[in-house]
């Protein structure tokens, strides 16, 4: 029974006389309406919230009470006229509680994100949407069941794209000549954290200087002032002036001289170059030390005095360094605003790299091994047999089968043409025919004209017939020749049948009543589709009828098998229930 209505009195506690009224219960909720509308005791509670129930013992207490507990503090007590009434209600409540707990289990709190994903999936895939509409809206499948088999799709969608990190800018703003006010002698420059990061990444000497000078020797502002001064001097390309300034101010000299750290790094790189490569890596590759980077330029003709050497700088150097840094990418997240921490972070990352390489002594050994291996001259080596793995075929006779004689005996349906002659006689006749043709020669005419025309006719008819039937391309599908509406319908039915059958077969063996209901619903939907397919078969044009029925046949067979299984199961159930004495349905 799905609903129970009884006269009862609502009591807020056991001592309470009680408000008479009507208690009505459905599977999901119960409600109490008092007879006297002036009392405001209308109750309407879902069974989901009811945690348990207690009832007074029949023989002991006077009243038939039923106590429904919601929480520790809140409970509802109902008093019934007779104990029989109370029993009925109690059973009903028990059933309702289990029912709602089952459902509660199923009604997962679907988060809004999950909902969004589902909606997005449905919008993207129209086929999925059709299936969803057909089954979930048509109350054949529950929402959760539908999505239970598609977890993979949902997961794939939910992993959003990883956030891209912002890379380094490729422009070199810090090398630009600071803006100068044409009127006065002031020069202004701007410095952003981004630029600071870039400067530290590209010029390790500056970074080193920062770490050592600030805050011991000068403040940050002074430091940057000096830096920009150095840049200004360089931008004038006056090397002599640079030397003069450097001689005066020691700190400035750091900025003006060439970057020693970079030079060291370059030298390290040269050493690590793999000599087994065919390119000649030699000191000439250490281009930082070559005037003009190995490029023939006119300017290098003028000889500079030795004291000016360290102050030369070239633009190419800077560009190359900048490019190298940009390609390397962001090694340190530039979230930190503090200049010092950025400098330290960069310094530490560099030192970690160096430490790793130093400790990796094995790498060096491996390289040496490889070098010695590759410098061997192949011609002078003894031939090395390639390593062989033994071929493992289990008894080849099993694989290629020597039972041919036996199987030929067993093969049904092949008409055994008895040879008229034994094998030696057959061979002889073959030899005779060969020698005969050698003596006689080819027959003239090769083929008689009547036979030839018969052949032509047969071939033409065959070709045109099959072209008409199957189309030009033998591998074209029959589906394409059908009108598009029929094709769409057939494909939709196919996907829906697959969905239904999936859920159907997974519900067996039936253990709970919910599965039983599900199977019933599925069976209903399957019979509908079955009828629709029959309809299609009947309605299609006569020329396509045979092919369509061939197409539809596997679907019908699958449905038949499912329905047959269902019916057999039903019979078993009814037979079983008939035998049980208490008629438990």
């Amino acid at each position: 029974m799905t609903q129970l209505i009884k006269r009862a009195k609502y009591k807020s506690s056991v001592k309470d006389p009680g408000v008479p009224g009507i208690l009505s219960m459905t599977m999901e909720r119960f409600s109490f309406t008092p007879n006297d509308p002036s009392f405001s005791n209308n109750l309407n509670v879902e069974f989901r919230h009811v945690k348990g129930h207690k009832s007074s013992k029949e023989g002991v207490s006077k009243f038939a009470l039923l106590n429904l507990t919601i929480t520790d503090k809140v409970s509802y007590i109902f008093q019934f006229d007779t104990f029989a009434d109370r029993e009925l209600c109690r059973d009903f409540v028990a059933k309702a509680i289990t029912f709602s707990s089952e459902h509660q289990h199923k009604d997962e709190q679907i988060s809004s994100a999950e909902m969004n994903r589902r909606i997005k999936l449905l919008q993207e895939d129209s086929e999925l949407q059709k299936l969803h509409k057909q089954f979930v809206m048509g109350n054949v499948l529950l929402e959760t069941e539908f999505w239970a088999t598609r977890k993979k799709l949902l997961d794939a969608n939910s992993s959003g794209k990883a956030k891209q990190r912002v890379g380094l800018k490729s422009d070199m703003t810090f090398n630009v000549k600071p803006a100068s006010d044409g009127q006065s002698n002031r020069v202004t420059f701007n410095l952003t954290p981004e630029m600071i990061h870039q400067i530290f990444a590209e010029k390790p000497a500056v970074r080193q200087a920062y770490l050592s000078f600030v805050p011991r020797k000068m403040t940050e502002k002074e430091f940057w002032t000096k830096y920009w001064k150095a840049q200004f001097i360089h931008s004038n390309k006056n090397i002599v002036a640079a030397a003069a300034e450097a001689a005066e101010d020691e700190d400035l000299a750091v900025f003006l001289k060439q970057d020693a750290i970079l030079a060291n790094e370059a030298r390290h790189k040269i050493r690590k170059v793999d000599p087994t490569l065919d390119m000649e890596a030699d000191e000439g590759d250490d281009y930082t030390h070559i005037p003009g980077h190995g490029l023939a330029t006119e300017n290098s003709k003028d000889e500079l005095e030795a004291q000016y050497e360290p102050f030369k700088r070239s633009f190419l150097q800077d560009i190359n360094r900048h490019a190298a840094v940009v390609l390397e990418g962001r090694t340190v997240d530039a979230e930190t605003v503090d200049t010092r921490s950025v400098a330290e972070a960069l310094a530490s990352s560099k030192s970690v790299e160096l430490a790793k390489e130093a400790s990796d002594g094995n790498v060096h050994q491996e390289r040496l091994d490889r070098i010695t291996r590759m410098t061997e001259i192949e011609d002078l080596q003894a031939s090395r047999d390639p390593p062989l793995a033994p071929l493992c075929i289990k008894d080849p006779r099993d694989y290629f089968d020597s039972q041919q004689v036996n199987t030929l005996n067993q093969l049904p349906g092949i008409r055994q043409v008895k040879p008229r002659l034994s094998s030696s006689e057959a061979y002889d006749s073959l030899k005779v025919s060969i020698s005969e043709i050698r003596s006689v020669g080819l027959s003239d005419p090769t083929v008689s004209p009547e036979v030839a025309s018969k052949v032509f006719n047969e071939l033409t008819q065959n070709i045109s017939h099959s072209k008409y039937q199957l189309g030009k391309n033998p591998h074209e599908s029959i589906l394409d020749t059908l009108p598009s509406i029929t094709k769409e319908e057939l494909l939709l039915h196919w996907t829906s049948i697959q969905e239904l059958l999936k859920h159907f077969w997974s519900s067996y063996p039936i253990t709970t009543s919910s599965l039983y209901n599900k199977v019933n619903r599925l069976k209903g939907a399957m019979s509908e589709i079955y009828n629709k397919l029959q309809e299609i078969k009947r309605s299609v044009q006569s020329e396509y009828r045979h092919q369509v029925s061939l197409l539809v046949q596997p679907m019908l067979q699958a449905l038949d098998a499912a329905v047959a299984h269902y019916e057999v199961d039903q019979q078993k159930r009814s037979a079983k229930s008939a035998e049980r004495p208490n008629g438990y349905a």
Partner: protein
Amino acid sequence: MTPVSSKQYADDVSLLMVLIDTNPLFWSSTATSFSFPKFLSQFLSFLNSILLLNQLNQVVVIATGLNSCDYIYDSSLSHTNQRAETLLQKLEEFVYKDEKLINKNDSVNGVGSSLLSGSLSMALCYIQRVFRSGSLHPQPRILCLHGSQDGPGQYVAIMNSIFSAQRSMVPIDSCVIGSQNSAFLQQASYITGGVYLKPQYLDGLFQYLTTVFATDLHSRSFLQLPKPVGVDFRASCFCHKNTIDMGYICSVCLSIFCKHHQKCSTCGSAFGQPQTSNLKRKAPDNGND
């Protein structure tokens, strides 16, 4: 399996590998209207006409015997004046050799089956050699003139050659001169994109050959050639070589068996227990009779 489409050839030069069936038991059982000499004469005229179509065409003939296969004729090696003579000479020698290889203890049922797998492999090896000879080579294809039944023991080997022909994009045409359709050749032609034909009037075989099988691969893109209505795709099981459509497959090497085995005979992997049906779950009503 989707069959491969033939390459677009700009040239119509072809290399034709013909595999003729010289199974004496088969030939001794055919009707007199289509005996071996008649077949040979039509076949030789066909070869001559192929070589006439284009100066650069090449033909190689391989004979498929009961116990062995061999090259009978190669147009690039022999003198143009005496094609038929050299071919027939070689054929006679081959038949002699084949007879010597008969194992007296083997009793052959019915017509027996010739070694199609062997000749297919030889043809494919020759074609591979041609491929490696340079970029300027005629476009190869294989023509099987076959009459004997399908030997179920050769299923695996034939399927392997069919797949390698598919990989090298060599079409296999089949002209079945026996009484029954050959499932192997149907599959071969379908998968490799060749033509399968079972002529109705065997005394007009020459007409069939020149109309359908003399077409080179370039022309096939704009010619209509006969297509079979259906192909029998059923596999044979590896234990008894019966054609089956439902069976067991080893998940390691994909060998097919018709009934449950303890272990796979090809790769030796052990199988688990078969899944028994779930009818056992409904306990038999012992007490409620």
